């Protein structure tokens, strides 16, 4: 007589071992599934960015930067640009410019409430400002140079994705890592995401209220 595959009626006197076996098998299976799930979860390396070291006195009451800021380093990373340059001076350091750059001709940067103007270039045209970047970025990526009171105060790299480079985050991290060792008294760098753009801003330390203002992609 074939026994049907049904649950035993409540109160039936099945032997203890027959009830226990499925529970043990289930528990073993759960453990095995856990092992497989963990083995299949790849380890991810977390990048740690290093800030400039501080040197404290023996009582930890005063500090200074362990490595004194080098103004030449920032000029090199900015391809010869320097904070405070006039539009005309900026124009001399940007490639593919037809004619001089004049304050009155520059468009407004609408993310600022102050009278901030800007000039932009495709990223491919500014190799001198992309020194440490090895990773990919989309063809729509561009660089923005921002001026306030006719003086350069920020350079902003906007890395965009495209079909050939769906995630330009690594490029932005490489650029950001190059500016990070500079003391905030030389340049203030920030990296953030705006819409699908990965952005790195490097700002003059004396830019005051302009420092915390960051670009947002339209429609965000």
């Amino acid at each position: 007589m074939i026994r049907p595959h049904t649950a035993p009626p409540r109160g039936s006197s099945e032997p203890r071992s027959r009830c226990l076996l499925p529970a043990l098998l289930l528990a073993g299976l759960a453990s095995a599934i856990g092992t497989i799930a963990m083995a299949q979860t790849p380890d991810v390396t977390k990048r740690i960015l290093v800030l400039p070291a501080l040197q404290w006195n023996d009582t930890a009451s005063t500090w200074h930067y362990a490595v004194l800021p080098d103004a030449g380093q920032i000029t090199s990373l900015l391809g010869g640009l320097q904070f405070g340059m006039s539009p005309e001076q900026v124009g001399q350091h940007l490639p593919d410019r037809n004619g001089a750059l004049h304050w009155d001709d520059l468009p407004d940067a609408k993310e600022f409430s102050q009278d901030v103007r800007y000039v932009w270039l495709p990223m491919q045209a500014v190799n001198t400002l992309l020194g440490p970047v090895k990773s990919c970025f989309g063809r729509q990526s561009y660089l923005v140079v921002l001026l306030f009171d006719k003086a350069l105060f920020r350079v902003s790299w906007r890395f965009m994705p495209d079909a050939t480079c769906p995630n330009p985050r690594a490029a932005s991290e490489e650029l950001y890592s190059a500016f990070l060792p500079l003391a905030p008294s030389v340049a203030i760098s920030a990296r953030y995401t705006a819409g699908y753009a990965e952005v790195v801003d490097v700002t003059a330390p004396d830019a005051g209220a302009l420092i915390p203002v960051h670009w947002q992609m339209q429609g965000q």
Partner: protein
Amino acid sequence: MRNWFPVRVVLAVPLLLLPGTPVLGAPQNFDLGSNAAPPVATHGKPLICTVTYLVEDVAANETYAARMQFTPSKDAVVGANARMSCPAMIPPTVSDMALRGCRDHAARPADCVFADMSRGFSDAPSVDNTSDNAARCESDAASQIAIACWNAGKMDVCNVGCGNDPKAAEQAARHRCELKHEQYCNIAGSLPVAAP
């Protein structure tokens, strides 16, 4: 009528704790103030004390290392390991400066926290739910500092560990993270406590 369910559960639980579960049962060895001598002795100039903090911008998922070097006091002793001893007490000003290092770069300063986070941090992500003491390693006790995290959706939730090689530091960080959060902490990184 007897119900065998409790017996089954009691017998099944040990199986569930076999390999495959992220909870580690061994006692935690996370003594940040350990006096154990590092195994490698250096030659030449003794290594001055460096206290390294890991701080996190939770909005950008960015981890920063803030190294604090201490000028040796006149009566400073060089340990057998050729490392200067670190101050017995690290004033809060030093921790504050580590946090400020992150805030200098963050879009929102409030997003900067110490990288050693309490259980429940993902529900209440604030600096009050982090520990400055546990987010640092001192060069007289450890040569490496590590972070281990699990991803809680928008942010990484992390803890910090110290050790005398990258693997040991990462293990300490993972152990602490998995014990504290009961999650599989597979996101990790490390770097030397002292500047190269």
